[in-house]
């Protein structure tokens, strides 16, 4: 009688007490939401950057050090996106669990499809190139699924008692994402092959997923602000190819895109690169709802086909 009850107590002792939810920090709001989708109320999750902020240029504020100090898991975009600000934060966090290479440092880019991995010699004459490939990969919903899977696997290892809960949350997310993908694909289907221009190279995964064709960028090179000669070339190219839609991220200046739009009779569309870029975009599925609706109405308005 006494032995089993002690065993039961031992089991109980191993089950995390209610309220001791895992504390997850993600570098972007997209990763934070994907973590929330699978972690539900059994975890707490916070994002360092905001969705309307250029994720290359986040400031390494000491208040972020405090968040990282308490983190049980750190989820990062990787591919050098955070190279300018995350390393000093991690180093000052005094948190051994989340150091790069440690168990609780999850690089979300390791199981997704990465585009634009440079081959051959690269130099900064090409602008601020990412030697490990384009880090804006979360803008393909298929990659969102891979990220969620990587997160659910990690969470299950960290809290085995909640593994079943996380698995069912993941299955539910997977189902909702699949339904939404069918919807987005149907909405975008008539616009396969439509040519667009984007400000920065933030959208290769998005355009590949939905079959769009980027013919040029407002930036002459990644990270380099627009120059008059490049802008003139871009206008000429857009006119020649009858390109009407210019996609801009919310953190870039609209002056050059607007003047390009005036010259070409086109339209500037400020798409959301991340969850939280606009108030109404509160989760990963709404991010694509927002972007798909906005770009399709721009296509309709400009007669792009």
């Amino acid at each position, binding site marked *: 009688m006494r032995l089993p*009850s*002690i065993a039961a107590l031992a089991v109980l002792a191993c089950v995390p007490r209610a309220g001791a939810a895992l504390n997850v920090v993600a570098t972007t709001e997209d990763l934070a939401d994907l973590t929330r989708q699978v972690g539900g109320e059994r975890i707490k999750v916070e994002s360092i950057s905001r969705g309307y902020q250029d994720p290359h*240029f986040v400031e390494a504020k*000491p208040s972020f050090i405090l968040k990282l100090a308490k983190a049980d898991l750190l989820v990062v975009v990787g591919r050098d996106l955070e190279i300018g600000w995350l390393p000093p934060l991690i*180093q000052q966090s*005094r948190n051994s669990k989340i150091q790069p290479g440690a168990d609780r440092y999850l690089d979300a880019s390791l199981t997704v499809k990465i585009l634009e991995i440079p081959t051959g010699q690269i130099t*900064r004459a090409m602008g601020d190139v990412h030697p490990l490939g384009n880090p804006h990969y979360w803008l393909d919903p298929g990659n969102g*699924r891979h990220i969620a899977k990587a997160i659910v696997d990690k969470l299950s290892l960290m809290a085995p008692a909640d593994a079943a809960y996380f698995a069912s949350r993941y299955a539910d997310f997977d189902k909702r*994402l699949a339904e939404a993908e069918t919807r987005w694909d149907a909405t975008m289907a008539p616009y396969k092959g439509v040519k667009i221009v984007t400000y920065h190279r933030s959208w290769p995964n998005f355009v590949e997923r939905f079959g769009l064709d980027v013919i040029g960028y407002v930036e002459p090179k990644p990270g380099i602000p627009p120059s008059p000669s490049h802008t003139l070339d871009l206008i000429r190219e857009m006119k020649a190819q009858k390109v009407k839609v210019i996609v801009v991220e919310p*953190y870039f200046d609209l002056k050059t895109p607007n003047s390009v739009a005036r010259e070409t009779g086109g339209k500037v569309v400020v798409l959301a690169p991340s969850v939280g870029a606009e108030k109404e975009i509160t989760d990963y599925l709404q991010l694509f709802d927002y972007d798909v609706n906005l770009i399709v109405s721009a296509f309709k308005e400009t007669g792009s086909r």
Partner: protein
Amino acid sequence: MRRFVSRTAGLLLTACALLAVPLPVRAAGQDPPGETATAALPDEVGALRREIETLRRDYEGRIAALEARLHALETGPVAAPAAAPSPAPPAAGSKVFNPDVAAIGNFVGAAGRSPGGGEPSLNMQEAEISFQAVVDPYARADFFVTLGPDEVALEEGYITFPTLPGGLLTKIGKMRDAFGKVNGQHPHTLGFVDRPLVSRNLTGGEDGLADAGISVARLIPNPWLFLEATGQVYQGSSEVFQAPTRGDLAYVGHLRAYQDLGESTNIDLGGSIAYGHNGVTDDTTTRLLGVDATLRWKPLRRSIYTHLLARGELTWSRADVASGSLDAVGGYGYLEYQFGRRWTAGVRYDSSERAYAPGLRDEGGSFILTYRPSEFSLVRAQYRRTSLADIDRPANELLFQFLYAIGAHGAHPF
């Protein structure tokens, strides 16, 4: 003042030492088994009930998982998440463990009448070479070597243990002292070409307070703000501190408080204290006391186009000499505003007495304009007016600077 400063130094160091003692680790989420194991019958019934509850929860969980898996299979083949299409690209063989290497060139020119001992007309002031890498699972190392016109020096070179027990961020090696803000900054992270007069007069000039030693920093947990205490012990070999014997170490204490005032604005406050032998005689010492305040504003949506930074630092020095002690005070105020993606303007006011001639007060003012073609280079012009206490008329100068970095992408300064 003298007694106050040394007592404050003592207190601060004691506080650092106390903080260094690791706090007892709380056994998170675990019931102490000893208390309940010896319980009487009713407790056993309760325990059994809980045991059953645990088992039930476990099975419910497993069933939910199976149902979920079944459902996923039923809803048809969505892209199989198990696929890993792009693992991290393999880096080239033997270079994998090479440290990150970068070189920063700092070219400074000057025109106009020099106030005496000023910058040469055209000068390759320094090239800084950095090597940075992780040492092992416990440490990382950073080396910054400066190649000047006529010297090669180790600007900094230290090992960092970021995850020692007790939250102690420990650095061992040659470092810039954690005294105020500008002392810790490398030339390429300053907003101006030259260092303020107070650095030159009271805290060791261009090289600043930098020495070989041990630094320990700990966060002080509190519900309100970021608070970090740093304690450092140095050999006592810098422009300010010179130890006559092995036992005469130099000590630095620093307390930093930081608070966000919303997502765009934040405030950063610091207090510093330094103590060590000054080498005038065998038992004379210098004490430094510093305060600094920084206000930053950077709207997140427009973060690459605009920001504002306002900073002030004040330093008090008390240097013992054979005949008594000399008090001097100095400081600067600096305002910087970014008005375009590539353009930043700044203004700085300097005023400082001299450590060993406290009656003499030097003054200066600067306007600074910086243009950044990219993240990796900048061109800067600075108009500087200096009134040295021992020279009749003020000197007007134009300084200009080219800074350029190649190699590994360093962290952006904050």
